[in-house]
């Protein structure tokens, strides 16, 4: 065809628009999402928790990380107790004399940080891995999936202990350990979706338009593989928080001076039989509420994002 052909007026009559209003995809999802009151409430809880976590240093009555502020002479005070200096412990104190309320706020902060960050990194790593495997297929796929199998088979505890020994203790190390055990799930999940998407004709169209592999993988394939990832992501955030708690219970988690919710529960676990319920039950309830809300939101998202269940 000659360059700059003059536009023709097609003889086909213009078609009527398919829908009266151009609707934003996110708007559609949001409208569907808000149809469930429970989901909206859960989302509200998540947001409140997130804000509380972010603002923990400002709203917590005490800085539980500061060894100067806490005193073991305040240890194990019941909820509502007041110490000689007149400090009011609304939810009591733990075995170290930390104000439970403050410790829980900071713990929430750590837990969410650990859960969300490890989730995001694991998603990024897993998604890149899974997409690559699915796009290239063949030998690449086989080798990469065996690596995934290997990772899935390794006990979390051993991974955590090895990393603890090699890298030392700290929030970043725990996140690393969680990423190590989580990414493989995402790689698996994404590969499944990507294999389906890979076979769709828009990918072939992109190939015939001579677009680069990187562009096809990340600009075409990736966005279409994300919805299921988002859903597993919310569940994995919850499971990361829970796993971190279990690691802490086994003594492989975070530094004990900077407790997460899981570590608080694990610490308080020892007091449960003695009737010092608040040390374990309060953070337990908080964790329950958080994970519960995240899961409700995730469930709802899954329903909303699943075209088969959409009306």
């Amino acid at each position, binding site marked *: 065809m000659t360059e700059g052909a003059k536009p023709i007026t097609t*003889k*086909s*009559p213009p*078609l*009527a628009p*398919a829908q009266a209003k151009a609707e934003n995809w996110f708007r559609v999802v949001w409208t*569907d999402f808000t*149809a469930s009151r429970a989901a909206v409430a859960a989302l509200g809880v998540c947001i409140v928790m997130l804000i509380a976590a972010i603002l923990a240093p400002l709203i917590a009555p005490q800085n539980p990380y500061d060894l100067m502020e806490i005193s073991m002479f305040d240890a194990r005070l019941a909820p509502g107790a007041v110490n000689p200096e007149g400090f009011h412990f609304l939810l009591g104190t733990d075995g170290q004399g930390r104000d439970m309320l403050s410790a829980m706020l900071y713990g929430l902060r750590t837990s969410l940080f650990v859960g969300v960050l490890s989730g995001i990194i694991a998603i990024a790593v897993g998604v890149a891995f899974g997409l690559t495997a699915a796009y290239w297929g063949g030998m690449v796929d086989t080798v990469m999936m065996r690596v995934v199998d290997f990772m899935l088979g390794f006990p979390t505890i051993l991974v955590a202990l090895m990393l603890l020994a090699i890298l030392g203790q700290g929030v970043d190390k725990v996140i690393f350990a969680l990423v190590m055990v989580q990414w493989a799930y995402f790689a698996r999940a994404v590969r499944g979706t990507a294999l389906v998407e890979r076979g769709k004709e828009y990918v072939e169209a992109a190939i015939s338009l001579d677009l680069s592999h990187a562009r096809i993988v990340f600009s075409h394939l990736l966005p279409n593989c994300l919805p299921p990832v988002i859903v597993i992501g919310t569940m994995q955030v919850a499971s990361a928080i829970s796993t971190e708690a279990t690691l802490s219970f086994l003594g492989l988690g975070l530094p004990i001076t900077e407790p997460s919710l899981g570590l608080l529960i694990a610490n308080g676990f020892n007091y449960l039989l003695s009737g010092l319920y608040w040390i374990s039950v309060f953070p337990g309830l908080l964790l329950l509420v958080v994970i519960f809300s995240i899961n409700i939101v995730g469930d709802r998202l899954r329903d909303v994002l699943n075209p088969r269940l959409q*009306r």
Partner: protein
Amino acid sequence: MAEPLLSIRDLHTHFDTKAGIVKAVNGVSFDVAPGEILGLVGESGSGKSITGFSILGLIQQPGRIVGGSIRFAGEELVGAETTRLRQLRGRDIAMIFQDPMMTLNPVLRIDTQIVEAILAHENVGRAVALGRARDALAKVGIPSPEERLKAYPHQFSGGMRQRVAIAIALLHRPRLIICDEPTTALDVTIQAQIIHEMRLLCQEQGTALIWITHDLAVVDSLADRLCVMYAGRIVEQGPAGAVIAEPAHPYTRGLIDSIPSRNSRGARLKQIPGMAPSPLALPAGCPFRPRCSYADDACLNEPSSIGVGAGRDARCVHPLVARVPA
């Protein structure tokens, strides 16, 4: 014409969706006589399948038959007990679906799926049922049915699967079979085979057939009578040959004209302008009005069905053939 086997009057089936009420079937009436082949054509989304499902009471949430009557051999099916409907399904009224790849359960063996259909209506032993299943397969021309019974659906080609579905439909010698685009997904050669077999079986057993399709050519070569659906209504019906030779409704005309044919080679095709209306927001009056070149103010009122020839009627204010008082 003989006493109708199936008589549908003013059927309304609606879907209550978030976006609004979808009037998928919006006042459909037609009769089917025993042994008759009725073609039901129309654009995609015009409500053909939903009409078929309504007859069997298989409308799923959020759909509902909101009005009208379906009488089968004198018995009212709208609002009938589920147990009664279940007795009729498969035994008196059978249905064959559009997509042969999807109608058989992929994880169950062919024999299981045939035998369970037999046992659902007859109290016979498994061995007897198996024998019947084998005969049924043989009847629809599946070679070595004995072995094929043990196969799974994926081991069959599309045509063979569709034949299994037909075999299941014919098991109890039903009086009416609803074929919902049974050959759309198949090749012409297979399509020919299936049409051939169906017709043969109907002639043998005196079964009535509702053949749902959007391929007018198939209907023309097969059906006795023809119903044309548009936006949930029947806009024209009559003997197949007559309707196709001389359509009365502008929509039928448009449909026939837009099919490429021998003599159209290289020429531009005629096309129906515009799009099918959304079932959520049907235009007032004649739903075809916005796309119709004959439309005028008279069309703003809902047209009623008028006689346009022997056994023919159309829902149009400006029929393309002479109006004949009923």
